């Protein structure tokens, strides 16, 4: 009898022989049973400000207990966390033993208001996120998912029940880019972003702008128009600055002008909150009222320097409500 199995968590649908692992390296077929080998075994743990996710419209300045395990279902040539994402669990030197209850207890002891599943790709440690999310919810913590959103609809829909916010990468509005640079496809990512929105999870989108590869203004415009249409104009978009990394060291960091141009283009399409990341001190890190231009939240890097919103998230001048989760 064949012990081969098919993983249906992400669009890869890996067919895994007995003893083998999926493309993510951490979902392993053991005798015809699929095992999540990094369950309760994070390899990266930090307390970060919410802005580092980045989430700019979700509990500004709040400390988030952030974890990540080995493994990823994409293989981006420019990965910033490749030491974690492009390895299997057994290859990690640093592994913490934190079952969901212990994880939540530790986060609460550190006065964190939320757990973030991040660093590599939380889709691949799905079961750990789901169980931890349930325990965290029961104890008054929020759950934040930082993802490339390469996941099938049914599992994502189920996971959304425990998620409060997500920052999802939209790496390019170009299927060819996804195939060449990320070893994935565009369509499932777009579907996942729509699912987050439909399921009521607060969503922010990140687009890492890589010189010559995905900085074409026409494509950026098309991406933003799609966002306005499918996700709504209140969905924040973060244009992030690329730095040469991993297997993509041949390209220079994104020039500030390219980020400015992309931001102007995005604002022109009707998106109301467009940010620039990885460029500390840039005015594109701040939140401005889309109605009267008042400075609402001033940031430097990951730090909130001023916050003028009231508890309901209203502009102090025009009293219009700013989209987001503020308490």
């Amino acid at each position, binding site marked *: 009898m064949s012990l081969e199995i098919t993983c249906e968590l992400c669009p890869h649908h890996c067919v895994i022989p007995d003893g083998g692992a999926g493309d993510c390296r951490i979902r392993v077929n053991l005798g015809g049973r699929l095992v999540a080998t990094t369950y309760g075994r994070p390899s990266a743990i930090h307390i970060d400000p919410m802005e580092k996710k980045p989430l700019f419209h979700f509990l500004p300045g709040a400390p988030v207990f952030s974890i990540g395990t080995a493994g990823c279902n994409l293989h981006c040539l420019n990965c910033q966390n490749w030491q974690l994402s492009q390895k299997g669990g*057994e290859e990690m030197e640093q592994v913490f*033993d934190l079952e969901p209850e212990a994880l939540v207890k530790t986060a609460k002891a550190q006065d964190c208001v939320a757990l973030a599943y991040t660093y590599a790709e939380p889709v691949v440690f799905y079961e750990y996120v789901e169980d931890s999310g349930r325990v965290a919810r029961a104890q008054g913590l929020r759950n934040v998912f930082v993802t490339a959103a390469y996941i099938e609809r049914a599992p994502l829909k189920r996971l959304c029940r425990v998620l409060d916010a997500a920052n999802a990468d939209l790496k390019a509005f170009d299927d060819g880019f996804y195939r060449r640079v990320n070893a994935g496809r565009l369509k499932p990512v777009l579907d996942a972003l729509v699912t987050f929105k439909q399921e009521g999870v607060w969503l922010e989108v990140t687009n890492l702008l890589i010189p010559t590869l995905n900085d074409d203004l026409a494509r950026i415009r098309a991406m933003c128009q799609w966002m306005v249409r499918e996700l709504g104009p209140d969905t924040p978009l973060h244009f992030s600055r690329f730095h040469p990394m991993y297997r993509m060291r041949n390209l220079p960091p994104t020039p500030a002008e390219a980020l400015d141009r992309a931001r102007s283009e995005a604002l022109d399409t009707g998106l109301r909150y467009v940010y620039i990341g990885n460029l500390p001190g840039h005015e594109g890190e701040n939140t401005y009222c889309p109605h009267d231009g008042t400075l609402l939240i001033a940031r430097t890097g990951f730090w909130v320097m001023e916050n003028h919103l009231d508890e309901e998230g209203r502009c102090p001048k025009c009293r219009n409500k700013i989209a987001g989760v503020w308490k």
Partner: protein
Amino acid sequence: MPEVPQQDRWSLEMKQKMRSGLSRRDVLACLVGALCLPFAGVGSSAPAGRRYPADHEAAFYRRGGRVM
């Protein structure tokens, strides 16, 4: 004059340093390193006796290969 490749520049610097002997700063750095060595890795590995990797059954899979 042709540019010296980075790798060669480092080894040149290292050779010059070795000829000139270790500075006080180098000795201090070695001492601090030696003192810290016993503590390196504390809390950074799986506790002894714990099985690894985890044996938690995953969701969303089915028996059999791809349906063609």
